[in-house]
């Protein structure tokens, strides 16, 4: 059971890195607008890029 002495800090570290990622996202403003994204998901993407000057976007 002494594995706990390694597993526990490791788990906290993993959780902590997720927290850092989350804070980074918040600071980037990804949570500023909570109204448009749920609606935007309902809008279909266009099949082909119709604008020739616009190279295919990911």
């Amino acid at each position: 059971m002494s594995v706990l002495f390694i597993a526990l800090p490791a788990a906290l570290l993993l959780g902590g890195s997720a927290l850092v990622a989350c804070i980074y996202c918040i600071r980037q403003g990804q949570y500023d607008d909570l109204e448009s994204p749920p609606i935007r998901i309902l809008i279909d993407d266009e099949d082909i890029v119709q604008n020739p000057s616009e190279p295919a976007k990911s």
Partner: protein
Amino acid sequence: MSLAPPPTVPNGKSVERQLDSQSNVAQQTMETPSIGGVTSKPCIHCGLPTMVAADSDPAEPVFCCSGCHGAYGLIQGWGLDEYYALRDQLTVTGAALAASDQKNYQQFDTPEFLGESSPKTTADGLECVELGVHGIHCAACTWLIERALLHQVGMQAARVKLSDHTLKLIYDPKQTKLSGIARFLDRLGYQLLPLDRSRENHLRQENRRMLIQIAIAGFFAANAMWIAVALYAGQFSGLAAEHKYLFELVGMGLGSAAVFGPGRTFLRGAIASIKTRTPHMDLPIGLALFVGAVIGTWNAIRGAGDVYFDGLSSLVFLLLIGRWIQFRQQHQAAQSVELMMRVTPRHANLIAEDGTETSVMVDRLNQGDHIRVGAGECVPADGVIIEGISRLNRSLLTGESLPVAVNPGDCIEAGTVNVGSPLVLKVSATGKNSRIGQIMQSVEAAATEKTPIVQLADRIGGIFVVVVVFLAFLTFAIWLPQSLQQATSFATAMLIVACPCALAMATPLAIAVGIGRAAKAQILVRDGSALQHLSKPGMLWIDKTGTLTEGSQHAQLVWGTPHALMLAAAVESQCQHPIAQAIVKASEIHSSYMAAIKESYRPSAVDVSVVPGGVIGIVDGCVVQVGNAALLATKGIRIPDSALELASTLARNGSTPIYVAVNQEAVALLGLSDPIRPQAAALVQSAKQLGWTVGMLSGDLSEIATRVGSEVGIARDMCRGGVSPEDKLATVKQSRDQFPTVVMIGDGANDAAALAASDVGIAVRGGAEVSLHAAPVYLANSQLTNIARLLKGSVTTTRVIYFNFAVSLAYNLVAVGLAITGNISPLLAAIIMPLSSVTVLGLTFAIPSFSSRSTEKVA
């Protein structure tokens, strides 16, 4: 999808024919005294005045051409009926804006105009810019703007933020220009505006700060929780002492980090509450958190006794979520107001001392600067006119729809629209100091202010502290004879479980959610206590003119030729009276018909003078008199009997008869009336169903008041006609003695006193300024059905508040009971406490208030 049936008024040719026959009818009414003839209604799609038979069904939509009919059919067929309501609520400001920004697209390429929202160049040579968009209504607009813009050459990305109506663009400056984008969007019906970010930035920073706190608290809570689960499991299946010690120490670290990290807002609140000696909900919460953390740390270090860190950290997490939701909902109301206020321009034409003009940001203006406001432009700053005579549309501030004349020396405010000729202003105040800026601030201050019931909850919080401390001592005293350690343990448990976290959230959360939902329905509630008042049915006074009725006069030619109407309009066009405007408007419809049959005929009048009862002027050498029967009598003009008969029919129907006399001979009769709004009867009915006593107060004649009252379903004895604003105030005050709640629904401008005197004033019309000052509730789209929605929503919100109160108190009572009897274990505490908060959170959102007609469905 199927198109509607063929148009009723198919094309120009038959319109003429139809009108011809109708005007014949109008002329023939000399012999047959029935109210026939033509009247005008706006085309339902484009708003153009259109001729229809006066006896046609008023509910029937009118079209000016088959194109509009087709478009209407398409929109209806797609189920987008909401479009018209949304469009109408914004037409005034939208039109003003479009006028003021016309041909100014080039400005979008200058950094002076854009100010803070100038494009930033990214690493790969693209430009990134964030601008405000005016005219966004719903998700469909988001779709249209983003889709349409991506077809523009050089556009890399376009993103609309629905919450604050902004658009983020990434484009290639070599291929496209911002001015081109602005022009393109204007064609779609959306206007781009530079943003004033300072205030918004503040809110955004605050929002992010709260989210980060929640994230941190969530991390601590989740980890403290799984450690606690291991500990609890260990109690049953055995746990090595060293492991238990490790768990307790790590739990302690996480728990105290949660309490003294994200949880310090509560500790700080508690300290402030002690310092200022004002009872506050933060006090018992802070007490519980602090005591729990200290005792838990002590127990963890000495390796004996209970630790409460899991419960404490999840409490902090849930309470922070509650606070964040309140924050968001409160700012939704303020934001709706701001979106309306965004119409004030961000740039001004500064006149330098040498007379040259430059376009500068409003923020750069100083007091005493001279600026030019062109015709049709929106005034960018408060100031005094030093040059020019013009007329101003001040509807944004006062709600007065008629433009007012202004002269040099007059003070004018930012946000008004100059509809006349160019003006030169000496700036006296800009931005926050301008009147419109101050309104914004007062609305926001009110939104964050505490409502009485929240204050009540805070007071309960104060009592709670006393009770909880007393109970803790009691528990200590009860268990002291057994053992000191047990007594301490139970007393601590007592302090922690009695933490009124759910109670602290219950009321403010319910009110915030209610206000936020109302704001989405265009009902701006300034004050949360209004919701409480509105939930108790009492007396509902409604103003007639402009509230139950449209509020504007509509003239209708009842007898006589359109020619007479044109003569009358020529005289009246020089007056500013509402009746004059109605006559001019009626003549415009006729003149478009006249223009179709022969070349444009537009008589103009000279020597116009206003006399008691009417107006006299000379048109084409003929003396034209327009006025009531008394005016004609004093001039010795005989009115034909048939016309008199028609006039009495008009009066019975609630219209005011106006005669036109040419060269001492009565030639035409006009009926003036103020149509009742279609939703008025529905409002009265639903208010009655909710238990309200409905009454009407009107400055109009009693007869007219009673007639309107009977049409919308208000009892005869509750219709008070001929009431002056002072009488309205007195009536409202008087009924406060008889009814628990008195609500006044009226016009922000004329009924301000009565609105302010009532328990809850609801302003349905008029500018945002006066309305929000006088009344705690303002209907931004003046839809009467929204009042019924508000009444129902308040009942639900209040029910949610009481329910939340009951639930959280029940939790606390059970927990306190268990703690006193020594039956509480840390496990039980950890379950009960978050559960109560979660219940309150869930209930508040699950119970629907202000149920919407789901506009989102359209998307």
